């Protein structure tokens, strides 16, 4: 009962943060809303029994990637964004297209596993050793490829910084 209440509460915070992210005009407020979204997502993961993913969500997303966002806003001294009416085509085509896409995804998900009943929180593997076994035994190649991805990202960051000049 308490579990459900907490889950709904942080879910609501998460959605509210996401809406606020779009509604805010100043980039730093939007960035902070995104941090709130990340933080409440971490709590949701925690409540679902994925403790490792939850903490990683905080360390990487809230604690590292969002730091870069906030940094960039501070460094560029980005001011309030100017509002425009928006393009009419985007509204006319975008909204129906989005609805269709979401409907499609939902349809496919329900078709794929129609009997996806409820799973007790913490019933699925979420502890660090279980994640580790998956990562370092079953999915070894994708894991090693991550390192190449990091290498490319490092080089990309340096090259981009040089180009700016």
């Amino acid at each position, binding site marked *: 009962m308490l579990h459900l209440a907490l889950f709904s509460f942080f879910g609501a915070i998460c959605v509210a943060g996401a809406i606020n992210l779009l509604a805010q005009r100043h980039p730093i407020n939007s960035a902070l809303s995104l941090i709130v979204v990340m933080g409440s997502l971490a709590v949701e993961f925690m409540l679902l029994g994925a*403790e490792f993913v939850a903490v990683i969500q*905080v360390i990487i997303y809230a604690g590292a990637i969002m730091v870069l966002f906030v940094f960039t806003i501070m460094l560029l001294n980005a001011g309030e964004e100017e509002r425009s009416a928006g393009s009419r085509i985007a509204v006319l085509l975008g909204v129906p297209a989005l609805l269709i896409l979401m409907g499609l995804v939902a349809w496919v998900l329900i078709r794929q596993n129609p009997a996806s009943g409820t799973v007790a929180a913490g019933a699925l593997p979420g502890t660090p050793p279980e994640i580790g076994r998956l990562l370092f035994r079953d999915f070894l190649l994708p894991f090693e490829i991550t390192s190449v991805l990091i290498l490319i990202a490092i080089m990309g960051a340096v090259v981009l910084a040089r180009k700016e000049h």
Partner: protein
Amino acid sequence: MSGNLSVGWFVLISVIKILIAVPILLGIVAYTVWLERKLVGHIQNRWGPSRVGPFGLLQPIADGLKLFFKEDLTPPYVHKALYLLAPILSLTLALTSIAVIPVGGWVTIRGARIPLQITDVNVALLIILGITSMGVYGVALAGWSSNSKYSLLGSLRASAQMVSYEVALGLSLVGVLILSGTFSLRGIVEHQLGGFWNWNIFGGGQIVAFFIYLCAAYAETNRIPFDLPEAETELVAGYHTEYSSMKFAMFFMSEYANMVTVACLASVLFLGGWSGPLFGPPVLQALLPVFWFFLRVLFFLFLYIWVRGTLPRFRYDQLMAFSWKFLLPLAIANVIITSLVVALRS
């Protein structure tokens, strides 16, 4: 025998533990400030606080009261919401880490075994790292929202410094994780029980990691020799230049609370936590570990102050080079060597 406590009782006991732990933490924070002023005074051939109470022992209380009654200024040029949020965020995060730190073994009250720790979770160490990584925002937001040059410069420096040393800090812990095979701080201590030769710093050969951890932690807490964010000679007070009254004190308190966390974590990870000789009646046997743990924490707090009284400040380029060009490669080397030894042995 861990499952014999109902959830309701468990939560009640946790609340009691929190209500004991938080005032103790705040007390330690207050008296670390006193200890610092006293010790630095003596290092510089002065007396330090000596007027309020015997040995100036009531000084922290006087300071606290004074700060509450000081003018609480919210300047008109600041971004108000973030300006208020920053100190709240800093202090909340600083007071949260204590929840997962074990201060002693188990006590048995009426047949229920209760750990001397607010809560023992599987990923305790990572939770502290997560809290540390969020600490950057307190500093960054304070500087940005203040809309003052010194604040902004100080906070930029502080954030760049904190993220740089976070990498070395995170890597220095990997050796300990390899040895103990768990993220639970209780598990890490229990792995080191049985004599000082079992401590990670000696038996585990983690002395290099210990050094890296201390350096990185000093930088994370913005303490001398890494106190560039608030280098008085150039930046006035760094990111909290525009803060007054209790809002300033909250940054101050969170710095010291973070120091206590660092001291606790250093004891737990490298110096065997609460391990030490046990003797006497059962009550003493239950409380001695807490005493041994407290001694270690005191030692690290003393070290903080000693270093502050001794070392000069780094230059900013030295500071960045020290993290990226020295600590980071050293930490990676430590991971490689430790893992090779452990892998060969198992």
